[in-house]
């Protein structure tokens, strides 16, 4: 085709091989490499030079291949991560160090990080941090907080378990899926479709609220070359509604009659790659009539405001409520009280992998390969939308390039399934960065009013919390936020008299959903800020005030739940004391001595988080088997979205079974062959699925021991074809080929099932919402440039009670990554529909924005956790933003109550505006 334009092939070397490729003039090199040359190791995150995931080396220089017309490559030498790690010793050593440090979590930015690092290391073999920061400043990572990447590039020694160690619970071992992430062979959502697969493009509302009508779609399609099908609500065979909480399900796959937020899908076109890539959405036959929209809770609650959904009067979706004692009376009787109003905006998850996937129909069954955090929930949603028996649907999750909560909800799965079913052909799609940002869920904007009282000696006395959350156009996880926030808004403190109410209000904005913490980070800003205000009023050291009120074993939470064990907040706060005292003194000295506009401050904040669903069933099942050849297979259904479930779940299973981790092979989530390990959400996988893995390992071990009547303490050695059981002085041998295999081919098999023990909450939120909480306290040293209102973070110390660090390296990575997201929330991130729909207007931290983050791991074992382990995923960012705000207040005396604290906002506050 292109040859007809008289254009020859573009010739260059790709990872040492000469290639000639015919690409349309100006085609992005990233597209050419991926789709015409099979180099799917090159990742596309933004197509705008904003994320750097697509970085390649051209004649040794790192560039964004998405910003490089393919024809520029003529005669050049192109290197990608796959080629580098396969052949270049320098890159191979670097890849090893990335694995040693856990510097690749989801792995989606890793190709960019590695190529940019190789370019640096070829010039500067021993770079310092400044050189690394400069070299990697063009690659965004949303998982790691960058510190492990810096360590890997700088060749900081890693502290891993010995390579031949069993790798059981407590051992820092490499990620089991790390090698493929470094080699560029990990297959993410957009990496599984064959070239030339039909593609899908969604037509979206350009308005926050609009009526729309279609033209004659059949006639239109008939007139288009290369369009195989048009999809609208009329093509949804089942019920055109989905939602993660069945009682609140309200979101259509395609809007019908009215669009309720900018970016909402109304139709889709399916066509050849060339057609879809050249398709102008404005040419689609739809007529819009913009309607007045409500985009904030005050507007949505005003009388006469248009209702988003029938039956939700006042646009109130739901409320959450917790009360104990008498908050009003306690506040009235308190020696001192403080109060404040705190606000936050939409926060975008900004995983570097936009939603992407592939679907095909095989023997009448639809198979969906897509990135997800919740494969079985996807299956359940598709069952309703497709009106098909679930036996005819298979969810095959791809690797996930970050999720952080948003990939719990279905996004493009309906379009993939409908496209495959309607055309009868395989289909694929990948969201553009903008449509990912427009259409998927966000962190809830919050407006929180808090009153807090205390006695003269600093004992908290009365707390009244009222939070309004902008839940957007559809329910998503809004009910969860509304329920979780009142349970957690007390922080990990003993407050006898407490009242907390959270309301979720619909607006014509993208749906607010799950984002690391489910509203708790917003609530923590209010509480932890006011604790500092209280400390100032009482002239009590802020750390000591927190310690005075920290929950202890045996003290009731605001839900009346009493933990006899496992409450680790005091230990977290105590762990910060040395840094706290040293840094407060250093800050005082700095501020006394400086003649610049810089002011240094030190802040702390705490956090807690209940692991698993709130007072709801939350089971996980893990199964495993041993084949006649002695291979051990673990069906590991807990989605690894970068946090490390593949590794941690396997470590827990191997510990229980009593074999080295290296002996265990994984079968990942696949709704045909792997049991439901629930969603990757609510910091539940290590705790809940980890327990299921432990129980599975124990059950399989029991099977083995029973076969030879050995005692519990026996040692297992699994070898090809046999298991040797050493039980004291006696040795047994189980010849595996003598045993009958089950339908899966396993001669020995077991499964483990775990559902955490909780009890319902009553009308006052009293009950046992969670079987365990994790605890955290963080310290931030910040420097405020009072002349410009800019904030530079110098150091963060993060103490986290994880019960047992199943893999300390991964724990550190979670902490640093969560802290980085907290930094973004505090200082720069605000999603504004229509205005910050890309990664250059919506800013997330770059490598130079993250200070050294020192994790302190506290292990206050939990009786319910597997070997004492607690969840961690959300705790990590809860204290960060308030600790930053407290450090800023300490530095310059200005209490910021609205995040993000951009330079303009802080400067205005410093000026007294």
């Amino acid at each position, binding site marked *: 085709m292109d040859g007809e*334009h*008289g*254009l020859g092939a573009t010739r260059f070397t790709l990872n040492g091989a000469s290639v000639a490729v015919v690409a*349309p*003039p*100006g085609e*992005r090199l990233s597209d050419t490499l991926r789709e015409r040359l099979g180099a799917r190791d090159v990742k596309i995150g933004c*197509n*705008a*030079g*904003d994320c*750097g995931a697509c*970085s390649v080396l051209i004649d040794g*220089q*790192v*560039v*964004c291949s*998405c*910003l*490089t*017309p393919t*024809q*520029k490559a003529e005669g050049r030498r192109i290197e990608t991560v796959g080629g580098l790690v396969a052949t270049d010793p320098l890159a191979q050593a670097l890849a090893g160090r990335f694995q040693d440090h856990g510097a690749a979590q989801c792995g989606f930015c890793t190709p960019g990080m590695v190529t*940019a690092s190789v*370019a640096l290391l070829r010039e500067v073999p021993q770079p310092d941090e400044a050189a690394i*920061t*400069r*070299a990697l*400043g*063009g690659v*965004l990572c949303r998982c790691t907080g960058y510190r492990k990447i810096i360590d890997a590039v700088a060749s900081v020694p890693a502290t891993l378990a010995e390579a031949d160690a069993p790798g059981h619970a407590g051992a820092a071992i490499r990620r089991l899926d790390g090698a493929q992430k470094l080699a560029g062979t990990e297959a993410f959502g957009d990496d599984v479709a064959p070239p030339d697969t039909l593609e899908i493009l969604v037509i979206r509302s350009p308005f926050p609220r609009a009526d729309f009508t279609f033209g004659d779609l059949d006639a239109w399609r008939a007139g288009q070359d290369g369009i195989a099908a048009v999809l609208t609500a009329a093509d949804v065979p089942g019920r055109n509604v989905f939602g993660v909480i069945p009682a609140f399900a309200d979101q259509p796959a395609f809007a019908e009659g009215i669009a309720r937020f900018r970016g909402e899908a109304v139709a889709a076109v399916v066509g050849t790659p060339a057609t879809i*890539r*050249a*398709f*102008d*959405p*404005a*040419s689609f036959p739809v007529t819009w009539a913009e309607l007045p929209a409500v985009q904030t809770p005050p507007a949505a609650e005003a009388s006469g405001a248009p209702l988003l959904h029938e039956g939700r009067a006042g646009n109130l979706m739901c409320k959450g409520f917790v009360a104990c004692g008498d908050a009003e009376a306690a506040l009235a009787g308190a020696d001192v009280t403080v109060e404040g109003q705190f606000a936050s905006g939409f926060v975008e998850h900004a995983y570097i992998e936009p939603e992407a996937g592939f679907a095909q129909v095989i023997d009448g069954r639809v198979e969906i390969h897509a990135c997800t955090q919740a494969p079985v929930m996807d299956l359940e949603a598709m069952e309703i939308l497709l009106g098909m028996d679930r036996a005819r649907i298979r969810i095959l999750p791809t690797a996930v390039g970050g999720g952080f909560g948003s990939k719990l909800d279905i996004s493009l799965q309906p379009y993939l399934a409908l496209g495959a079913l309607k055309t009868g052909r395989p289909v694929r799609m990948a969201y553009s960065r903008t449509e990912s940002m427009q259409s998927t869920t966000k962190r809830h904007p919050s407006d929180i009013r808090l009153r807090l009282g205390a006695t003269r000696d600093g004992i908290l006395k009365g707390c009244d919390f009222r939070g309004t959350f902008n839940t957007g156009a559809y329910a998503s996880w809004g009910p969860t936020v509304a329920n979780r926030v009142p349970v957690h808004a007390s922080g990990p403190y003993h407050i006898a008299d407490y009242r907390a109410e959270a309301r979720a209000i619909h607006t014509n904005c993208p749906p607010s959903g799950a984002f690391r913490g489910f509203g708790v980070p917003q609530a923590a800003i209010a509480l932890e800020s006011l604790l500092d205000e209280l400390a100032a009023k009482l002239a009590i050291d802020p750390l000591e005030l927190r310690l005075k009120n920290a929950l202890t074993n045996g003290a009731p939470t605001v839900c009346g739940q009493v933990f006899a064990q496992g409450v680790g907040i005091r230990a977290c706060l105590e762990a910060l004391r040395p840094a706290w005292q040293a840094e407060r003194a250093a800050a005082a000295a700095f501020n006394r001595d400086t003649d610049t*506009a810089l002011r240094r401050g030190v802040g702390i904040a705490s956090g807690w988080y209940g692991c698993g669903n709130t007072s709801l069933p939350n089971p996980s099942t893990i199964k495993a088997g041993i084949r006649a050849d002695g291979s051990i297979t673990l069906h590991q259904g807990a989605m690894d979205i970068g946090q490390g479930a593949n590794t941690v779940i396997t470590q827990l299973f191997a510990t229980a079974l009593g074999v080295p981790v290296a002996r265990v092979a994984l079968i990942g989530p696949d709704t045909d062959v792997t049991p439901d390990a629930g969603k990757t959400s609510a910091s539940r996988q290590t705790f809940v699925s980890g327990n299921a893995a432990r129980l599975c390992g124990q059950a399989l071990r029991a099977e083995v021991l029973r076969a030879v009547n050995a005692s519990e303490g026996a040692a297992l050695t699994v070898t090809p074809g046999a298991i040797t059981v050493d039980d004291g002085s006696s040795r047994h041998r189980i010849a595996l080929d003598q045993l009958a295999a089950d339908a899966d081919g396993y001669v020995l098999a077991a499964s483990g099932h775990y559902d955490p023990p909780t009890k319902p909450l009553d009308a006052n939120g009293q009950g046992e919402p969670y079987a365990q909480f994790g605890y955290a306290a963080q310290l931030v040293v910040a420097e405020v440039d009072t*002349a*410009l*209102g*800019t904030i530079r973070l110098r150091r963060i110390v993060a103490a986290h009670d994880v019960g047992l660090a199943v893999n300390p390296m991964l724990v550190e990575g979670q902490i640093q990554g969560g802290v980085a997201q907290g930094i973004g929330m505090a200082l*720069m991130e605000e999603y*504004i529909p229509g*205005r*910050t729909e890309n990664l*250059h*207007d919506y*800013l997330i*931290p*770059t*490598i*130079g924005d993250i200070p050294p983050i020192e994790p302190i791991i506290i292990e206050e074992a939990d009786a319910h956790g597997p070997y004492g382990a607690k969840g961690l995923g959300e705790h990590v960012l809860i204290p960060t933003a308030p600790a930053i705000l407290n450090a800023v207040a300490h530095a310059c005396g200005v209490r910021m109550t609205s995040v993000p604290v*951009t*330079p*303009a906002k802080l*400067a*205005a506050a410093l*000026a007294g505006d």
Partner: protein
Amino acid sequence: MAYLVPDSLHEALTLLRDRRPQVVAGCTDVLPARRRGQRSGDILDVTRLPALRGIAHGPQGWRIGAATTWAEIAATPLPPAFAALQEAAREVGAVQIQNAGTIAGNICNASPAADGVPPLLALRAEVELASHAGTRRLPLEEFITGVRRTTRAPDELVTALHLPHPAPGEGGAFVKLGTRSSLVISIAMVAAVVRIDRDRIAEARIAVGACSPVARRLPAWESALQGRRLDELAGLRPDPGHLSVLSPIDDIRATAAYRIEAVRELCQRALVRAANAAGGADGR
């Protein structure tokens, strides 16, 4: 539709005259701006034209080829006054952008937040344009006329930037203010070039970006600085009147009011750093 990669200026100018292609260099602005479904015509890539590459100096001053990348500018040994340009070169996007993006691409894109424009203004850059009708040179101030607007004629190519030799005693600096450390569009930026004569400012040229449709020099403040003693530098900030040429706006990055206040501080810092680069303001 074709991707045209001429290897001589003559051929490039002929293609430009006859086919009116879109002229591209590093493509770091062109490709992000490409919309889905946008029909593109011919593309003319100027990065392989020898006449547009390289940094050289002669009796008349310095010539920076139009297709010189930011990375090349940053890596080339240049006089201290050019630190204003070199520091800006290291602040454009990130390494990936600096390796591809070019100096002429930056000025032809004519973004109000172009990092390259304030230092080029402070260095009194002239733009060299060529067409089959001949070549012409004009001051950068006259080349960029508005947001995304220049005086380049459709058949003209920007071939080079010309910078006069800095006088002895000149130093330069660039200060960028953004909300994060890299890959950031400036809230405001200031480039300063200062000539020190003994203990005084003999001449100052200060330009501000992202606070007006086109980056602007601050002639009133420049005049006010002339003759000031180096030991006064720490207290020197432009007054509001000195900034009357600016017209900042409120946008997602900052408010107009903030920009003005920030520019006063940035001017101060750029001035001190430029004086330091000139070797003169050590005892601030």
